[in-house]
């Protein structure tokens, strides 16, 4: 009985560990798994491990793959966790930071900040997510307004509003990119979801935002469960619904905006992962939010392996891989939703 309770966590953590090791090992230069494990452990304090690996491995792993791996994992955490939170908020399993346009809004904010040359130094880099965050908040407010019908948020209006707002934000983003002459290529790569900034700086810059936003979200599982019964029942069960929604919108937008600011727009992770997590481990958001966050990290680490190896030596942006996987999945959910429209 005790073990059963921890089973979801054991499986999810195991999957993350495996995805992380594979991500570090696979690439243009393959590093044996056991050596990856020893090289990572060697970096931990209190462990004495003899450095019997080639210097090239050290350079590749410590300076390229590990920072990329950690940023990819953090981005996946943010997308999975915020996706689950948005689904809880909209009471709609098709809500995802990308589908409802928040990612594009965050992208617009972040690109605007970059065009104004905010990230010229370390402090500037930490400011990009703030701009993305503002863009995300404005987007979520607009989409929510547009898609609410009375006291509910129907799936059709939600997606229509998301598409419209997203297209608008993307168009403005393209305009800014076209008008700014320098670094156009890098920005475009970034837009479709490439981890091209490199090094540990983006990891450090995103960490405080993610700790804060995901930290808040994982504590809100129980009230979000209450919210699944509708605003009125939730109020009658003693929940301060307006305050809860505000906190969730702000936290989930911050998480999504941080992911977008450092990793570009990566679609469908926040849709696919919470859905699979729900199928595997049940619908309660107490477990769903943290498990979807961890699952998001695994999913993105695996997608990143594909992105780097499919057309090797060329690297695909990871957003291309998640879209190729995620878009058909989205359509499948939509087809199923048609049958259960009444339930929404």
């Amino acid at each position: 009985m005790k073990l059963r309770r921890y089973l979801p966590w054991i499986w999810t953590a195991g999957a993350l560990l495996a995805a992380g090791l594979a991500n570090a090992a696979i690439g243009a230069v393959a590093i044996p798994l056991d050596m990856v494990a020893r090289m990572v452990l060697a970096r931990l304090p209190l462990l004495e491990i003899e450095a019997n690996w080639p210097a090239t491995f050290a350079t590749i792993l410590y300076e390229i793959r590990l920072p990329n791996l950690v940023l990819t994992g953090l981005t996946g955490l943010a997308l999975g966790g915020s996706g689950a939170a948005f689904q809880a908020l909209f009471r709609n399993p098709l809500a995802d930071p990308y589908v409802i346009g928040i990612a594009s809004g965050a992208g617009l904010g972040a690109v605007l900040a970059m065009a104004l040359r905010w990230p010229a130094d370390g402090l500037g880099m930490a400011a990009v997510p703030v701009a993305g965050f503002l863009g995300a908040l404005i987007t979520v407010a607009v989409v929510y307004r547009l898609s609410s019908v009375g006291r509910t948020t129907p799936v059709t209006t939600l997606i229509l509003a998301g598409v419209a707002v997203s297209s608008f934000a993307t168009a403005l983003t393209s305009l800014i990119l076209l008008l700014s002459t320098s670094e156009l290529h890098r920005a475009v790569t970034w837009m479709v979801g490439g981890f091209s900034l490199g090094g540990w700086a983006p990891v450090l810059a995103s960490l405080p935002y993610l700790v804060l936003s995901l930290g808040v979200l994982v504590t809100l599982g129980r009230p979000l469960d209450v919210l699944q019964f509708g605003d009125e029942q939730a109020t009658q069960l003693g929940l301060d619904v307006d305050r809860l929604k505000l906190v969730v919108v702000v936290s989930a937008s911050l998480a999504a905006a941080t992911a977008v600011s450092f990793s570009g727009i990566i679609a469908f992770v926040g849709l696919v992962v919470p859905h699979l997590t729900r199928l595997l481990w049940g619908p309660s958001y107490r477990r769903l939010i943290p498990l979807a966050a961890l699952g998001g990290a695994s999913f993105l680490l695996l997608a990143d392996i594909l992105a780097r190896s499919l057309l090797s030596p060329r690297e695909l942006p990871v957003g291309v891989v998640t879209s190729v996987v995620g878009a058909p999945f989205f359509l499948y959910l939509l087809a199923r939703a048609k049958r259960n429209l009444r339930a929404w």
Partner: protein
Amino acid sequence: MIELKQLSVGYPGLTVLRELDLRVEAGEVLAVVGPNGVGKSTLVRAASGALRPLAGSVEIDGLRLHELTPAQRARMVSVVPQASNLPPAFTALDVVILGRTPYLGWLGTEGELDHRLVAEAMARTETLGLAQRRVGELSGGEQQRLLIARALAQGAPAMLLDEPTAHLDLRHQDRVLKLVRRLTNDQGLSVLLALHDLNLVARFADRVALLSDGQVRKIGRPQEVLTPEELAAVYGIQIHVMTNPFDGKPLVLAGD
């Protein structure tokens, strides 16, 4: 005790209830009846505190509902809504345990006391055997009993029920209302029940309030309120009332 004092409720541009007075004693089931659109559901929403009154007040055991926080309100009054659109993948236990929300806050988790009260509420509503079943697999009657269990777990002295027998067959209507009756008697709850079916009202309610034009037209024991004259005036059709040969309560028949 539930007291509605000079209560006016409505939505923008539409006043549904006007200066309405109503009082439900502890241990009493008071049924609110009236035609569609007369404001039965609005009355329940207002009495739960989910809808702010335009004027007047709702008091539970002397506490003015609209001066309390949502959590404080939920400790005073619980609501049993119609069982529809419940999250289908939640287990029955998941649903009932949310009745403890007003005692936990955002960050709290259930303790031993909460689990015991939830098990008790499920035992009383005969839902304990369903605990691990998914809500989507349950019948309408089972879902309705589950919502009553959730309301019981709230431990509030007042309980409001909005059409709890809608969509239920005869057997389950009977079972749900007998349960409500028994809980009221055993726990001394003050129960306000919005119900369409006048014959069920006659069987299970202590008193009936007949709503018309946003006010209580008549209130009293079922045989005093459910008369052909009153009902014909409110529902606008000819109505016959006979004495039920089995329990001596009024039996309402519509038609010419």
